[in-house]
């Protein structure tokens, strides 16, 4: 049973990560693959606050998400003011640099990882409660991204992706919108990190490296970028698939590279042969609710 719970939690966290990443790369059109670093910030900040500073776990989790959000703004603001291209470079640099720093300082547990993270809910209300919490967060994330994507904000994002210059000349602040979306997406990733940390109670810098970037990108691209359900389908598929590989009983040294190969290979295959992903997005932006007065001739 515990195995099923773990799998469900991993899938739900994958849904949170993929949906929030879809907001950034899909709806806002921001190129960054550093999503795992905000996942890491949420995990580490929450875990350290709860373990070493006695902060209650729910508060620590929220602070972890806020820390991820703040860090994402610090990365996005300087780079987006120059041009979109720099966000990718700045964020990769930030991802690898921060993980390098985590490996080199002692209070994070270094390269060996952070242990003894205080648990939450499991002892008081049981594993089922924690599973319900994570699944609840995943459902809320999906609903949130859907309401943003198909509301007035999504309309503006769609226009911005089409033609940023014309968009700005109408009085819209493209940079502010990009930073806001990046911050929201990264904050959600931070929350996912916190939820991960207090369940598995052990994190290492290694699990937030480029392999994780490739995994999240694959969920979105294979599932269907710029759709509500694509990232969900992608997350389920890509969390379940590696689990299947673990049953093959391969040596650990082969397992990581093989998963990486699977993720990156899938992205390439889909990019060239089915760029729209499993769930195809329409080219046309749709509002969530049709107002009754629209069709009037």
């Amino acid at each position: 049973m515990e195995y099923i719970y773990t799998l469900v939690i991993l899938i739900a966290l994958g849904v949170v990560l993929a949906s929030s990443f879809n907001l950034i790369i899909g709806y806002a059109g921001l190129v960054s693959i550093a999503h795992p670093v905000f996942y890491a910030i949420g995990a580490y900040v929450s875990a350290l606050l709860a373990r070493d500073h006695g902060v209650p776990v729910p508060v620590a989790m929220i602070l972890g998400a806020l820390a991820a959000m703040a860090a994402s703004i610090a990365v996005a603001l300087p780079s987006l003011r120059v041009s979109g291209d720099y966000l990718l470079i700045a964020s990769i640099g930030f991802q690898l640099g921060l993980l390098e720093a985590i490996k080199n300082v002692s209070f994070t547990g270094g390269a060996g990882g952070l242990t003894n993270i205080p648990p939450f809910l499991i002892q008081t209300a049981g594993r089922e409660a924690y599973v319900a919490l994570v699944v609840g967060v995943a459902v809320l994330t999906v609903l949130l991204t859907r309401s943003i994507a198909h509301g007035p904000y999504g309309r503006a994002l769609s226009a911005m992706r089409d033609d940023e210059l014309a968009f700005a000349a109408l009085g819209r602040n493209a940079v502010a919108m990009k930073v806001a979306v990046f911050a929201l997406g990264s904050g959600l990733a931070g929350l996912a990190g916190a939820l991960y940390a207090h369940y598995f109670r052990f994190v290492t810098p290694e699990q937030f490296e480029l392999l994780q970037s490739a995994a999240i990108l694959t969920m979105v691209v294979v599932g269907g970028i710029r759709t509500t359900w694509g990232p969900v389908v992608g997350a389920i598929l890509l969390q379940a698939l590696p689990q299947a590989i673990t049953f093959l009983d391969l040596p650990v040294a082969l397992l990581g590279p093989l998963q990486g190969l699977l993720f990156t290979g899938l992205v390439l295959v889909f990019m060239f042969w089915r760029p729209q992903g499993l769930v195809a997005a329409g080219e046309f932006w749709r509002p969530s609710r049709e107002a009754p007065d629209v069709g009037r001739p």
Partner: protein
Amino acid sequence: MSAVLEIRGLDKRFGGIVVADAIDLTLSAGRVVGLIGPNGAGKTSLFNLVSGIFPADAGTITLDGERIDRLKTHRRAARGLSRTWQNLRLFPSLSVLDNLMVGPRHYPGEKLWRLAFDRGGVRRREAETRRRALDVLERTGLAAVAKTRAADLTFGQQKLVGVARALMNESRCLLLDEPMAGVEGHAYETMQRVVRDVAASGVAVCVVEHNVAFIRDLCDEGVFMFAGKVLARGPVADLIADPRLTELYFGT
């Protein structure tokens, strides 16, 4: 007659190419000014400088008495400056109605926190924006195609959508970049009427146009530009009649 947009001593050069050379120009409420001159005279560049697409090297631009030349493009638009584009620049993934709905000076759903904490307010203003957009579409004769993709319209209709989108700003000053290029028939008359109505409502309008008939019928005043300079200004009929300007226009 009050000045809305005032341009003083505007300079801009790209490397060796001068696109604006000490330009002075005043646009007044309720009047339509036509910018004429050969291709490469700096007409579109002037629009780009005024709307902040790139910064000027020197000179000042004031809108309703306030300096706007240091502001970013979107801030200038928020002060009440709107424009259209030679090559349309509509949003292809949006319907005609949604193209317009992105255009108001203050967009209801531009702030994420508002979506979270002021849902009612956003919904109210969305409804209001929708009403205004439908009204503008009615005036521009586009009501029937409100839900069509902009890319599926005729070229003339697309030009009208561009102007209609700019009207959503309820701007003090409207810059129209070749509104008539490629527009024929019914859309032609609609465009003329729309521009006239806008000016009559007290907006300062500036039109770049190669269609001399359109300029003559519509503009209160003409400005002749050549090589980044304003060479002459006055009644359009006089400018057209001036043999020296005609020679510059058609080249030798």
